[in-house]
């Protein structure tokens, strides 16, 4: 008999209860149990970063976590990044404006990694962003446009913060 557990997870603000096999990866739970297919799986061994999601405010690789480990936690995926009215977030918009994605497969991980970094480091340098992105592989863009998007978003986020201060 497969070993299953009951878990409660909040994803993008919505509570989900599910009975899952204990070996089910968090990535598969999000993608195939909850049908949130925006999170991607590129290697299943923790290197590519495509599967990165936010778990209780910290980025984590959903291919290296079991769904049961997310019990009681709050998760944000790419589907939860847009503004409340459905408009693209500042970072998402910066990705479009700077051509920060081509095939789009690395994009969910890039967005989560950068969201976390910009939240904690509002004024990053190019070198710093490149360092932060070493945990996320992209085969298409050569990273340049992703870094540009990160810098662009950081500037806009600072400006919008100043405006609201």
């Amino acid at each position: 008999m497969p070993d299953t557990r009951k878990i409660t997870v909040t994803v993008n603000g919505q509570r989900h209860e599910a009975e899952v096999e204990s070996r089910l990866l968090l990535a598969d739970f999000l993608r195939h149990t909850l049908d949130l297919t925006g999170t991607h799986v590129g290697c299943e061994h923790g290197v590519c970063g495509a599967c990165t999601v936010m778990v209780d405010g910290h980025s984590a690789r959903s291919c290296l976590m079991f769904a049961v480990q997310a019990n009681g936690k709050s998760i944000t995926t790419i589907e939860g990044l847009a503004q409340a009215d459905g408009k693209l977030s500042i970072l998402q918009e910066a990705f479009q404006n700077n051509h920060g994605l081509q095939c789009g497969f690395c994009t969910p991980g890039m967005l989560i990694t950068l969201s976390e970094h910009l939240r904690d480091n509002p004024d990053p340098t190019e070198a710093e962003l490149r360092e932060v992105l070493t945990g996320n592989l992209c085969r298409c863009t050569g990273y340049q446009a992703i870094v540009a998007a990160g810098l662009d978003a950081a500037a806009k986020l600072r400006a919008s913060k100043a405006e609201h201060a």
Partner: protein
Amino acid sequence: MGMKFFGASVLRKEDPALLTGKGRYVDDVKLPGMLHAAFVRSTYAHARIKSIDTSAALALPGVVAVLTHDDLPEPMRSRRLPLYVPHPAIKQTFMPWVLAKDETCFAGEAIAIVIAQSRYLAEDGAALVEVDYDVLPASIDPREAIVDGAPLAQQGAVNNIVTQVPVKIGDTDKAFAQAAHVFREQFALHRGGPFFLECRGVVADWDAGTEQLTVHASSQGSHRFKRTFIDLLDLADNQVRVITNDVGGGFGPKGSFYVEYGALAAATMVVGKPVKWIEDRRENFVATQQERDQYWDMEVAVDENAKLLGLRGRLVHDGGAYVTWGLVLPWIAATSVIGPYVLPNYQLELIVAMTNKITCSPVRGAGRPQGCFVMERMMDRIAQELGLDRAEVRRRNFIQPDQFPYKVGLIFRDGRPVTYDSGDYPKSQQMALDHMDWENFRAKQEAALKQGRYIGIGLSNAVEGTGLGPYEGATIRISTSGKIVVFTGATPQGQSHKTTLAQIAADHLGVSYEDVSVVTADTATIPFGMGTFASRTAVNAGSSVHLAAIEVREKIKKIASELLEVSPDDLELKDGAVEVRGVPGMRKTFRELAYNAVGLYGFSMKADRDPGLEATSYFKPEQSTYANSCHVAEVEVDIETGHVKVTRVLVNHDCGNVINPMIVEGQIVGGVAHGVGNALFEKLLFDESGQPLTTSFADYLLPMATDVPHVETLHTETPSPLNPIGVKGAGEGGTIAVIAAIISAVEDALRPFNVRIAQMPVSPETIVQLVLDAKGRQ
């Protein structure tokens, strides 16, 4: 018609969905009742299969079926995969069975497919299938494989030589006899694999009632897949539909039809349910085709002024176990050697070896990086030997702008003579040198050396045959809602076709590119297609969209002129309608016109009208169009650790007219990153028995954000005369010449040690060894 969108850096139509997690990649497809598959793969590079025991797997709860070769439906069971690029010079055409029949020829070859309720269970089942093998001797190194008496890579082969063909221009021996200088170099060139972020995958769904097979695939060409399913199963055109939605990168190897896809079709037919297979990364390392190795043993002859007289030698290409790509890859390499230079005499013995490794496929650049590397390293060698500046040697050998069209004297992979259509190579190089302040680098280098830092600069030029035939097509249809859709067989994997093709159509139809939807790679929407590879889509699909849009525009004007009783010449298209120039109220919307064009039920149609507001065009280029680039790279080498930091890369690229500069820039910068990997670290390793040693991203390194410099770009625009929109391909130009430029820069940084580098990639160990050897010599 003014060009409003063609040439503009408009934002991508693809992005909003991809940025919010609404992309539709193959693993996002979920069909009712869908089952999941996993493969049992050969653990040996070469073996005879004695028996397969599937009983334990079948006994596992959740496993629905296990298929081996004998379980495949006919006629698939008695057919190997078809070869679509035959060539008379190919003497032995081994192609794989959908599931290995009685022999496996590389470690990773599919032997059985397990179908289960979940992917987890399918993998559990696969682990329980027992294969009893007779291990056979294997040929791994292509140079050894072609020697008499080497173990045969395939039972029944005569030897391991797939083909041995001469490539020839002029009288090389005579040229060498008269040469002032002759230099020899042996090159070991490796190009790794594609390593797109999204592994391969297929969902196959056979409807036994309608006898139709629907396949969702991560591919570079859905029509090619459809054709193979038809050929493997003897199906009629209406029985197969292949759909490719979003694709997470392709870079060449996703263009191949793989045995797994055939097995998925078999699986859904046998179990009567849709079946999904998603390759995992480990499988990707052993079962997705790779470009790997070429060994060139070459001599170059020059006169006393460093002008090329001739080039000769031998190229041994590692073709892997099957000949899927025929001669394509080494042939491109052999013809790309010439680059932008006048080479009067050339002789190459090209040998494709069969080895017990996964089949070789073109990867972004497709042999051109190797050809370019050979010529550019020779240029550097000549400069070094004759005490000349590296740029000067190239300058003396360039094809001049007044020499176009320039006939190289060879036949290209498109079957046509290599005829360069346009370009300005001396200017391209000069622009690049000026930008990088080439002349003053020596002073910087000496200053750095005084501080114990080893910096270097290198350059490289390439000419790239792009826009290969035979054709790509586009249908443009305006439906009775007035909405405009472009259908094409081109199959993007990140190249932004949905934006660029819309830009082309929009200008002719007087609408915004946002009003044009582009549907790619659904075989139900357009009968023929070739797919996206070989930097061919802007040329082929782009030209087709251009031609079809003009036809639709004329149709719109014709119908409107009849309805409005004015001359078509007085009409202009604007904002989704056509109106009489200068009379704003006199107009017909696309909606009204489309409605009219469909015809009235039961009424006769005018004889000079075809139904519907639509047109189809298949652009068939008469030959490839030749793009070019000049790359300059700067590096800093740590001679203690062998670490190379690429500090600057400049690309001066000419891809003719540019549809969307932002997108072209993205292609070039991304291409450079790929080349950085090829130059410095991407290497697939095998042990002597053929076991792959690099099977994860921990063993095989892809370039990270810190490995790639900020790439600078310049653009020259020499419009192609060979297609109506004047474009050349842009997908591979970033990659091709950068590898040679980086290696040239590394060699330059190590000038104090006088080392020569004739390999790619060059690893830190190699650099440390080269320096140690040099120190030993000194």
